């Protein structure tokens, strides 16, 4: 048996204006979980895309299964036994779960010369797979009816079922909740026991140390090194990733919550399965965390407050004024902002520049004569925010779709900072963001609170929720199950509230 | 080969009058739309007739497609003028745009022969008493006549087309394209002439536009035959293409032209003549593209040579019936 299932040697890849990979090496042993780490924009996804045949590398060599290979497209990669869960989900919303999973390798049966799709087998296989990933869904259900995290589970099921020798997982857990993560780890362990290798990319330190055998680290497109996971600690990884020490995960919270300025009363969705009778309030300069399991309807609630979803009852009072919010614009003009959960669907403008993506929500503030855009002033604010968020981009004119996932997320956060709202609602703000940058974002959030802005933060990462919130509202099955003061918050009491009505 | 005689007072080109040996004369032709059946025959005849001229001059003929778009055609005329063409033969897209074209040509001093679509009378008189008078003309057939002939084709039948003998002619009309003068006149005068000649009443069962298109002719007739059944006595089609489509529908409905229905068109397309001969069409009207194109070319040549043109050259339509069709067949 070979020592390595995969060897990538001296891989380089440039995009206009960036050298994304500079002679990177990576060796993967059979039957191991190999974590790949690095800051946002370090080149992790690019390296994996070169391996999976989505990009062609400029130079370098790939030896897979003892044989030098030239992978020109994904079909090629798949046929060699490489499967991948992409960082950016690629679901086909209008087709069934089964079709999504078996796309490209449908089971067929033959009637003479006719080759017909074997639907019975297709659905049976899918149902079996879904059970494996703990999803009790009908395999005929359209993907569009699933939540982001359920779609992610489908993506994982798809990669896992490909019978691959090597499975690449690019931030598979960024939209999964704890339960689902555990399920994923079970699957990974099963795969490993069967001799499958896994390349695992994540920004979540705990996961890395828990699941991986070896860890490779990249920085700015350059390979830093590989270490056995046993020899590593979170601090060591961070140091090697970022190049400096990072002593605290959270900045000191020295904001002082003031008066109640924002009140939500009796919010009930028109969808009977969604949130019901939700009431809460928010103080000036307060960071209100919102916890709960997937399906707790936190996102739906916030979107409803913001005018994206419809309600049957509910009232929002802001600084004593009852707001009539029919569409997001109404909320924004009142100084309320929402960073949405699904970056791709409701966040980025793929073909537009980074600058336009940052500036779009703030145009009202930069009008001369109420009509002509003051492009200079706008540009200044945009550039400030690009800098503040340390967005890694060749220029502010670059199309956002060519940025790394984490940097796209930073751009959208930058958009709402530029807008300078008084109430900022953040739905999973640090999804896909590296540890170093997370700290910076936390600092910004605390800073905003100190300036008297109010923050609502939905997060499925318990430590983040506990570390950042003045107060935590926990939801379960669409209802508020309780509030926990920041200092009293523990994983246990949040969990018990999150499962209160189950 | 065509059985017609040139009834137009075609200006004869007299080769002895001018000693213009070896000159190259650029002739610009713009046809309103290239895929019009009739104008295709027409333009081909223009081209080939120029080739047969042997007065020592070389005629360089450029034919453009107006694409049924007056703006486009105006651009083409501008370009012709810009390139220093010697004479233009213009089949206007929009007859009302004649004034603009005449002005352009007059400015450039280039003679202009309008064909097929007749400009307004006022426009034809625009340069009366000025230099440019006699340098532009209209060569065409009187569209009213084609309509009248259609009416006569039916009125001249023994039963005047009135199959059920109620003294009323029940008919359907398939209109070309309402914006086209030919369509308008044929629709109008076929009936008015019928009324006049036959003394019968008429009843219009249906009038639909078929855009000169054979497929539409078929569908319209098929629908009408379902709806009105035996009530239909005559199908008037503004052109032969639609009449041919109609004849398909008539045959498919188990009706027989000449026995329980009549069908007339205009253009005398080859197949229409065949059908007339075989009795599957009652008659058609020859739009004499040979006569018209030759007259137009002769006028152009005359104008180039500096001779004064008349304001109008008329070429007659000819009725084609089963009795006369043999004269027209190839």
């Amino acid at each position, binding site marked *: 048996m070979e020592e390595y299932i995969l060897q990538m040697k001296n891989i380089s890849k440039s995009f206009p204006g960036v050298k994304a990979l500079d002679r990177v090496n990576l060796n993967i042993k059979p039957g191991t979980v190999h974590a790949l780490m690095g800051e946002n924009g370090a080149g992790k996804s690019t390296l994996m895309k070169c391996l999976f045949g989505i990009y062609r590398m400029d130079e370098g060599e790939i030896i897979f299964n003892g044989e030098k290979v030239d992978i020109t497209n994904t079909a090629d990669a798949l046929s060699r036994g490489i499967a991948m869960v992409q960082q950016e989900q690629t679901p086909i919303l209008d087709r069934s779960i089964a079709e999504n999973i078996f796309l490209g390798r449908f089971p067929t049966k033959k009637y003479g010369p006719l080759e017909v799709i074997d639907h019975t087998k297709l659905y049976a296989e899918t149902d079996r797979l879904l059970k494996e990933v703990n999803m009790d869904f009908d395999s005929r259900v359209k993907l569009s009816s699933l939540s982001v995290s359920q779609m992610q589970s489908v993506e994982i099921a798809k990669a896992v079922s490909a019978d691959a020798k090597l499975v690449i997982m690019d931030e598979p857990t960024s939209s999964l909740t704890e339960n689902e993560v555990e399920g994923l780890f079970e699957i990974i362990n099963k795969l490993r026991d069967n001799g499958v290798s896994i390349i695992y990319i994540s920004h979540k330190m705990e996961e890395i140390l828990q699941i991986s055998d070896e860890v490779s680290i990249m920085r700015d497109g350059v390979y830093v090194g590989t270490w056995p996971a046993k020899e590593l600690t979170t601090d060591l990884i961070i140091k090697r990733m970022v190049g400096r020490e990072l002593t605290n995960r959270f900045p000191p919270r020295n904001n002082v919550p003031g008066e109640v300025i924002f009140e939500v009363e009796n919010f009930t969705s028109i969808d009977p399965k969604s949130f019901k009778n939700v009431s809460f309030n928010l103080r000036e300069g307060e960071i209100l965390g919102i916890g709960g399991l997937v399906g707790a309807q936190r996102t739906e609630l916030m979107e409803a407050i913001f005018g994206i979803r419809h309600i049957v009852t509910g009232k929002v009072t802001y600084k004593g004024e009852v707001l009539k919010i029919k569409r997001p614009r109404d909320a924004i003009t009142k100084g309320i902002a929402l960073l949405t959960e699904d970056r791709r669907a409701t966040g980025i403008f793929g073909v537009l520049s980074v600058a336009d993506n940052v500036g779009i929500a703030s145009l009202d503030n930069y009008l001369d004569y109420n009509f002509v855009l003051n492009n200079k002033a706008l540009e200044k604010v945009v550039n400030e925010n690009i800098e503040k968020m340390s967005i890694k981009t060749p220029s502010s004119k670059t199309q956002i779709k060519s940025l790394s996932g984490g940097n796209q997320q930073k751009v959208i956060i930058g958009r709402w900072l530029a807008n300078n709202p008084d109430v900022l609602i953040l739905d999973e703000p640090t999804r896909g963001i590296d540890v170093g940058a997370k700290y910076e974002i936390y600092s910004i959030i605390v800073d905003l609170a100190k300036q008297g802005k109010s923050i609502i933060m939905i997060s499925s990462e318990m430590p983040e929720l506990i570390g950042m919130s003045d107060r935590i509202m926990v939801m379960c099955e669409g209802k508020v199950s309780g509030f926990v003061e920041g200092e009293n918050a523990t994983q246990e009491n949040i969990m018990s509230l999150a499962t209160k009505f189950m | 080969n065509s059985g017609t005689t040139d009834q137009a007072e075609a200006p004869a080109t007299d080769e002895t009058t001018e000693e213009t040996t070896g000159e190259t004369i650029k002739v610009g032709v713009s046809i309103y739309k290239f895929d019009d*059946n009739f104008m295709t025959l027409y333009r081909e005849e223009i081209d080939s007739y120029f080739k047969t001229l042997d007065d020592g001059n070389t005629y360089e003929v450029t034919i453009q497609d107006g694409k049924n778009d007056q703006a486009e055609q105006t651009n083409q005329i501008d370009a012709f003028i810009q390139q220093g063409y010697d004479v233009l033969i213009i089949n206007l897209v929009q007859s009302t745009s004649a004034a603009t074209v005449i002005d352009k040509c007059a400015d450039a001093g280039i003679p202009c022969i309008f064909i097929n679509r007749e400009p307004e009378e006022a426009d034809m008189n625009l340069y009366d008493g000025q230099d440019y008078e006699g340098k532009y003309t209209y060569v065409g057939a009187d569209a009213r006549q084609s309509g009248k002939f259609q009416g006569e084709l039916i009125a001249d039948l023994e039963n005047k087309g009135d199959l059920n003998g109620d003294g009323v002619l029940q008919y359907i009309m398939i209109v070309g394209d309402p914006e086209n003068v030919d369509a308008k006149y044929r629709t109008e005068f076929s009936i008015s002439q019928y009324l006049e000649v036959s003394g019968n009443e008429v009843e219009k069962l*249906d009038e639909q536009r078929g855009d000169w298109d*054979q*497929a539409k002719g078929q569908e319209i007739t098929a629908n009408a035959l*379902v709806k009105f059944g035996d009530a239909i006595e005559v199908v008037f089609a503004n052109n032969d293409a639609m009449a041919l489509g109609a004849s398909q529908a008539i045959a498919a409905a188990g009706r027989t032209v000449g026995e329980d229905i009549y069908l007339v068109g205009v253009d005398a397309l080859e197949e229409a003549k065949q059908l007339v001969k075989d009795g599957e069409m009652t008659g058609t009207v020859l739009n004499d593209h040979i006569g018209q194109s030759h007259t137009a070319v002769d006028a152009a040549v005359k104008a180039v040579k500096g001779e004064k043109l008349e304001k109008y050259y008329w070429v007659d339509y000819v009725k084609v019936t089963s009795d006369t069709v043999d004269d027209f*067949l190839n």
Partner: protein
Amino acid sequence: MESNKIKDFLENNAIIILLFALVVYVGLTQDGFLTMTNFFNIASNVSPRFLIALGVSGCLITKGTDLSAGRLVGLGGVLSCTLLQRVDYADKFFPNLPELPIIVVFLAVILLTGFFGLLNGIVISYLNVPPFLTTLGMQTIVYGINLVYSGATPLGGLRRDYTQIASAGINIGLPQPIKYLLIIAVVVGVFFWFLYNKTRHGKYMYAIGGNEHAAEVSGVNTVAAKLRIYSLAGVMYGFAGFLLAAKSGGASVNLGLGYELEAIAACTIGGVSTTGGIGTVPGILLGVLVFELLKTCMQFLRIDTSWQYIVQGLVIIIAVALDIRKYTAKK
């Protein structure tokens, strides 16, 4: 609750109900509408258009379009006519052409139009030219070729055995024979239904329309799929042209003008999504029916031609506006 169900039913079947109401109204007020003859008549009009719509549907489902459809119908029709004229016809296009077997001509026609379809596919998938432009360019090119080939002469004098395809049918003891055109439409419709639902090609097509990148990374050969789709579309246009020429007893370069827009509209009315990934064969049939029935009904109702345009436009918009409600999810 009950009223809700009725509302749901109305919303989900808006177009069918509209169509049904129209047919009932015209049927009750106008003689001759609800007859077998009229049924076959409408079926014959629907048949070629259904083929064209089916052809273009694949392009639409994969987020493309095909504006060359109409002109390819024209080319198919003209080619058929030039090769299937009566031997004794005076104005024969190829004076010395012997009598060719119809099937040979048919194959030649669909091969040729299929080839142009393939070219569309190649330009779209290899040169990355947007489908709108590719097929608009192809529309112009095909028209030019047809002009050059036919010299814009109208073609007639077709052989009876050829025109019979459009007018005759199989006698199965009914008062009227079942028209071949109807049978062809059914067979082709079933074929497409099978292709779209039961084969890998169909699934790939929907996947490409839903998310081309996803299809690509799942190992679907998107290039090959598109080549198949556009070629098949070309074949269908040729087929339709072949039938239309037989039906109207002749053809000229104008044949098929504007059919592409009608076909695309019919598909969209029938629920094929302009943003890709969605569309069914029964839906497409429904869309084509809306168009053709509406035309026939208006003629029966003796609506003035100018007004017919207005009514047709309004009905399209209203039908789709009603229908679309079932897709626009209430959030």
